[in-house]
C-alpha cells in the first residue's frame, strides 16, 4: 500500500490558481479504527445495524473516499517484550478494535467528518481517526 498519494497538481503546483484549488486537490489517507462496538442485540436489531453500515459504506464509495477495510476477530494473541505469548484480550471491551478502514480525504477535519456518519455510535462504539504518515513530508 503506497502511502504517497498526492495529486499531480500538488507535485507540480499550478501558479495561476488560488491556493484553495490546491487544497481541494490534495488528498491524504486516514485510518479509522472502530472501537468498542458491541456486536449484540436481537436478530432484527443486528440486521438493521448491518444495513445501516451498508448504507454508510455505499455512501463512502459513492464519494470515492473508501479505500478498503476489514473487520477483526475478537480473539488473538499478545506477544510481550519477554516474547511470551498470551491470549487476548488486549484492551477493555469498550476500547477493543473491531475493524479498520482506510479512507482518502482532504484533511483530518474531513476524515473526522466522515467518521461522524459511522453507525457505530448507535451501538456504543467510537471511532479513532489517525492520519497515515506521509513519506514526502
Amino acid at each position: 500500500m503506497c502511502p504517497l498519494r498526492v495529486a499531480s497538481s500538488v507535485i507540480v503546483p499550478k501558479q495561476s490558481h488560488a491556493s484553495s484549488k490546491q487544497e481541494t486537490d490534495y488528498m491524504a489517507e486516514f485510518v479509522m479504527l472502530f472501537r468498542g462496538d458491541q456486536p449484540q442485540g436481537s436478530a432484527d436489531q443486528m440486521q438493521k445495524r448491518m444495513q445501516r453500515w451498508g448504507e454508510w459504506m455505499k455512501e463512502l464509495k459513492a464519494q470515492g473516499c473508501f479505500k478498503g477495510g476489514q473487520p477483526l476477530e475478537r480473539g488473538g494473541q499478545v506477544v510481550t517484550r519477554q516474547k511470551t505469548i498470551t491470549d487476548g484480550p488486549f484492551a477493555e471491551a469498550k476500547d477493543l478494535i473491531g475493524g479498520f478502514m482506510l479512507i482518502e480525504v482532504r484533511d483530518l477535519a474531513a476524515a473526522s467528518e466522515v467518521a461522524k456518519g459511522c453507525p457505530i455510535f448507535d451501538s456504543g462504539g467510537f471511532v479513532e481517526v489517525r492520519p497515515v504518515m506521509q513519506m514526502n513530508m
Partner: protein
Amino acid sequence: MEISEQFFRREAGRMVSALTRLFGVHNLALAEDVVQDSLCRALEVWKFQGVPDNPSAWLMTTAKHRALDLLRRERTARVFAPDLGRLLETEWSLAPSVSELFTEHAIKDDLLRMMFTCCAPELAEDVQIALILNILCGFSVSETAGAFLCSQAAMEKRLQRGKASLARARALFDMSGGAVAVAERLSAVQRALYLLFNEGYHGAHPETAVRSELCAWALRLGALLLEHPASELPETYALCALLCLHAARLPGRLDAAGNLGPLDDRARAAWDRELIAQGLQLLDRSATGNRVSEYHLEAGIAAEHAAAARTADTDWARVVELYDLLLRLRPSPVIGLNRAIALSQRDGPERGLDALHGLEQRERLASYPFYFAALGDLEQRALRLERATNHFSEALALARNPAERRFFAQRLAEVGALAQEKGATCPPLPEPSLR
C-alpha cells in the same frame, strides 16, 4: 445483494431449529448461543464486505462450523441429541452427519419439528405462542414482550418456564410417531398460529408494523405446515385460507385505524387482491374429507366478504348461516357478536340489537369495546342517536390503543354531527348495563 426485511429473524429460526435437532432440546440455550454468534459474525463481516450472494447459505455454513467445533470440544463433557449419539461420537461420521442435518430439506423438517415441540399440551397457549415467536421467528425476549404488550420481566418468566418444560421433555416432537399423536399436536399448532395471527390482526399493539409482522409470521409458518405430508391436511388448508383472506384485509383495516370488520367500502378498496386469490385457492383445496372445522367456517365467512364487490353485495344470509354453524362448533360471545352484526345486515338493526342483547355469556364482553361499538352502530342505524352516542362513549372508554380510540372518537363525532343535523334531542333512555 439486498436482504429482505426479517431475514435475520427468519434465519435465526432456521438455524436454531437445525442446531437444536443436533444438540438436543435440552441444549436449546447452547443452540441459541451459536445462532447469536453466527448472526454477530454476519453483522461484522457483511458490514465491511457487503451481503454475500447467498446469505442464507453463508449463515448456515457459519453455524455448522461453530456447531462442529463445539461438538468436537464438548462431546465427552456433554450429552447431545441422544438419537444421534453414535454418529456424533466418531470423527468419520461427525462431519457428514452434521452436513446432512444442515441441508435445506432437513432444516424444513427441523422447523416443523420445533413448531410441534413448542405446542406441547403441558404448555399454556400463551406460552406456546411466545415460544414460537422467540424460537422460530427470531424475536428477542423484549421484542416478544413488545408484541404482546407485556412486561419484559413477565415475558422472560413465561419463556423460561416454557423452555424449562421443553428441556424436561428431553426430546423434540417425533413427527414420525403415531398418526393420532401427530394429528392431536397438529391441531394445537394450528390453534397457536391462529392465535398468533389474531394477536396481530385484532391485538392491541399500537404499531401497525408490528401487527402486520405477526400476521406475516403466522402465514409463513402456516405455509410451512402445508409443505409436510403429516400436516398438509384439509384443516390446515382451511386455516391458511382463513389467514390469507384476513391478511388481505389488513391494509384496509389498519389504515382505517381499526374498524368493525368489512363494513366499510373505502377499506375494501385497499384489500390485497393477490392474497384474496391465494386464500380462495387454498379454501378450494381445503374442501376435501368429511370434517368441517372452525377454520373452514371462518374461511368461508371471510371468502363471502372477499367475494362481494361492495358491502351491500355481501350474501348476508350465507354469512349468518356460516356463523350459526360456527357457533355450534365453538360457542363464544365474540362469534355471537359477529353473527348479530351479520344478522343486522340481513334483517335490519332491530333484529341485530335483539341478538346482541340476548347474547349468551354477554358478561364476557363487558370490557370488549367492539361490543359497545356494535350496539352504537346499530342504534345509529335505527336512528336512536342518543343511545348510539352513549354506546360509542362506552366503547371509547374501553379502547385499548390509539387506533381504536381514534376510530371510536370518529364514530362518536359522526353520530354527533348527525344528531345536530336532525336537531334530534330525545331524552336519554335507560340502557341494559353490563357493569
